[in-house]
């Protein structure tokens, strides 16, 4: 198999507060191959965004990466000095944030923001960078880009601004795009366009995409593989159709059960009782055990490690190898 674009191994991120050290990410491992779209899904606070920020090196104090490693095309990037990781940000990894209304600096023309980014990462001159900016705007579907390039952010709609943000994220042809809930702040109709755009860009340029969202519909439609996160861990990871059709982890089952179907029987959607534990009060053993319908003694004491199960990997004692469960 060829080398993955992004390889994350046993990543741990902690936030040091005055009272305690909070573990936001606890041993997360995954790969993203060239041209692949990995969906990362989970409820708020599961560590999806923090994982994305850790990859791009934007975890701010008091947070820090405390263990594990992150490799971008074989090059380790998690312990680079600030200046070197800065050179990677925007050039080799592009990032798209949730709210396009606040992602752009209101006082600068969008063209200037794109040109500034291009010129930071390439040797292009002012006019060449401007030409490239116009091409980029055209590529992300901004009509009349040669005119719109001189507009200010407030002159664009939310969807158009997100397109500009995407243009900014891809302006140096990155190997990896991290999209942190790129459609959450947008209208449903615009959401579909933006998702289609990200998917098309990933395909056209062979870019790997890490798509963080809590919208299962977006995952099912867009991703090749999906990682279900819960309380700073990956509960289940696998090809999207397998995880959606045949979720193994009880939490993943619950999530998939919460997707409304078009077939539309008037059944109540499945609901997972309770809420995710706070970072300061993660229970021992499996973090999902207080809410799990299949909980048994071992779940309360021993933390499950991810194990291969067909195409999927799942961190649940129900699927632990027979030798261990016999013990």
């Amino acid at each position, binding site marked *: 198999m060829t080398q993955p674009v992004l390889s994350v191994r046993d990543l741990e991120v902690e936030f040091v507060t005055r009272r305690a050290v909070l573990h936001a990410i606890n041993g997360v491992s995954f790969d993203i191959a060239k041209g692949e779209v990995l969906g990362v899904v989970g409820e708020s606070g599961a560590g999806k965004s923090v994982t994305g920020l850790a990859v*791009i090196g*934007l975890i701010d104090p008091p947070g820090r990466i405390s263990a594990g490693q992150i490799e971008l095309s074989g090059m380790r990037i998690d312990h680079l000095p600030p200046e070197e990781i*800065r*050179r*990677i*940000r*925007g*050039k080799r990894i*592009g*990032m798209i*944030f949730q*709210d396009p209304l*606040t*992602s*752009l*600096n*209101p*006082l*600068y*023309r969008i063209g200037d923001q794109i040109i*500034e*980014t291009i010129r*930071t*990462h390439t040797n292009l001159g002012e006019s060449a960078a401007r030409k490239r900016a116009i091409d980029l705007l055209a590529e992300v579907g901004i009509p009349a880009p040669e005119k719109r390039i001189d507009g*200010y952010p*407030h*002159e664009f709609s939310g969807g158009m601004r997100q397109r500009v*943000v995407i243009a*900014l*994220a891809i302006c*140096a042809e990155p190997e990896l795009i991290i999209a942190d809930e790129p459609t959450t702040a947008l209208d449903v109709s615009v959401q579909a366009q933006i998702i289609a755009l990200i998917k098309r860009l990933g395909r056209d340029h062979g870019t790997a995409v890490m798509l963080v969202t809590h919208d299962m519909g977006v995952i099912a439609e867009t991703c090749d593989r999906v990682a279900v996160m819960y309380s700073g861990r990956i509960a289940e990871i696998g090809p999207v159709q397998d995880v959606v059709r045949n979720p193994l982890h009880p939490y993943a089952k619950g999530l998939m059960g919460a997707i409304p179907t078009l077939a539309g029987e008037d059944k109540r959607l499945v609901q997972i009782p309770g809420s995710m534990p706070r970072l300061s009060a993660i229970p021992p053993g499996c973090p999902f055990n207080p809410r799990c319908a299949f909980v048994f003694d071992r779940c309360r004491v021993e933390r499950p490690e991810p194990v291969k199960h067909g195409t999927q990997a799942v961190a649940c004692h129900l699927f632990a190898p027979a030798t261990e469960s016999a013990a």
Partner: protein
Amino acid sequence: MLAFTLRRALQAIGVMIAVGVISFAMFRFAGDPVSQIVSIDTSAAERASIRQSLGLDDPVLVQFGRYFINAAQFKFGVSYQFRLPVADLLKERLPATLELAVCATILAMVFGILMGVYSALRRDTVLAKLFQAVSLVGISLPTFLIGILLIYLFAVTLGWLPSFGRGQVVKLGWWTTGLLTLSGLKALILPSITLGLFQMTLIMRLVRAEMLEVLRTDYIRFARARGLTTRAIHFGHALKNTLVPVITVAGLQFGSVIAFSIITETVFQWPGMGLLFVQAVQNVDIPIMAAYLLMVSLIFVTINLVVDILYTVVDPRLRATVSRAS
């Protein structure tokens, strides 16, 4: 944009008319001007003739109309105390006050912004904390006390700088400047610090607070995610956004720098309009007081207008609102 400027200018004229009414009213309510001018043994006939020559026996409305037309042409009458046209007195004093105010403001802006940016970016350093502590002193100590302390230290004890006056001045047409001679520059230092210290600490605290706010915004995070250099982020993206509110405050403060220069000018015996005003108050020289009131409000109103226009230059969102409204 033009319509916006015109509308603001009209509002400014409205304010000036209101101030004109107030300053005219001062003549009516601050005692009989004639008895201020004459001595005890002046005869009644002489008093009447003075009253007539000053136009004080005309109906109030006529007096107001005359006052207003004159004021619009910068004719503010004759000072009771100096027997000279007030306009000439003010014109003579204006350069001193403006030079002091501009110096103090530049000082306040430059150091205020530098210290503010520094203490926002290096929040936890000793120097940043020192700036915070010193700024508290600057905000809470009254101007006259700071002036006196500075005089005591630099003029009396160390003897480095003059304690009063403007030093030697050079005449450029009707304008006199102390900026071209060494003694003039030396004389400018202490009053400028005294007058600018409050504004400086204010601007510093404002810049610090605004900058910290801006650094937390999504567009700064996104700028970092784009891999821009720290320099470009801090001094391009963040500082420009920080300066929008700072412009308003600094602009409005320039007006109060001129108005508050009364105290500084008194402490340093600075021959400016403020000192003239204080002397006028002591001598109940109403024409000077009224004219000073008008001058200061004119300066305030003009600055407001300029700040409004500057806003739209810096912030494109306001430009859009402005053109939509007009």
